[in-house]
């Protein structure tokens, strides 16, 4: 497979899995490392009454999980297609593009719904 095709497939996997894992962590409320700005601490434990920030941990987990999966895909593509000058088929290329865009949009939609419902944005704007 051509180098640009490998980049295309690996990158698509990375972006769609980042979006997927991100939503998964939010949906299942998977505990992440949190930063406590007033305590100056990073921990997975919940400190009662203290302000915390889970966003750093949440994105790090999603990026790492997606990076591992993408590396596996990259490694498989490299080893299985080495020495071959095959091109990614047009239909497959378009399918990968469509799936990637759909996963991103679904993830964005879920995150929007989750946060707006949680914080009363829908009620505020009468939706």
């Amino acid at each position, binding site marked *: 497979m051509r*180098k*640009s095709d490998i980049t295309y497939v690996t990158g698509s996997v*990375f972006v769609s899995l980042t979006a997927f894992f991100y939503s998964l962590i939010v949906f299942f409320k998977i505990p992440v490392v949190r930063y406590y700005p007033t305590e100056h601490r990073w921990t997975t434990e919940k400190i009662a009454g203290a302000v915390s920030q889970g966003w750093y941990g949440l*994105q790090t987990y999603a990026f790492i999980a997606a990076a591992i999966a993408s590396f596996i895909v990259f490694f498989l593509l490299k080893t299985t297609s080495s020495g071959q000058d095959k091109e990614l088929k047009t239909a497959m*290329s378009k399918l990968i593009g469509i799936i990637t*865009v759909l996963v991103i949009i679904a993830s*964005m939609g879920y995150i*929007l719904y989750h*946060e707006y419902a949680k*914080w009363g944005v829908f009620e505020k704007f009468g939706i």
Partner: protein
Amino acid sequence: MVFLENYFQLILMLHLLTTFFLIGSMTHNLLRVVDYARGRFNRRKQEQRFNSAMFWSYIIVYVQGCLIYPAFRVYMRRDYFDISLGWATGLFEVKEHWGALALAMIAFYYILRKSFDPGEEKDRCKLFLYVSLCFLINFIIWYKTIIGAYLSHLKGAF
């Protein structure tokens, strides 16, 4: 004392100024990418330059955002939004989550552009994803910019 609390206003101002640069490069890039969707490929080099400018300015904006977040979390969210304007926190949370997704998208967008030439016939099948990513990134960054400006206005960050 919260992390970088004393530099909050300075970094916030730099964050805003870098955002102007980001918006400019991103919008110029979008116009060239729309040309691709219409089958015009004569300004590819210019488009690639805007793509690089957009990528690096987003990285800088993102790092600045990460640095001011602790002070924002304590003095704006905890002391103001969470107490009386929960819906504003909702708008902010979506901004941050989408921003993280945009980081992955923009990194791929940058690398993808380096790996293919939109003008080449054999690479045309990748254009759908490239154009779609461009629109999604524009949408997210405009949301982030408008909501960020609105929230700063609500509290009066300075």
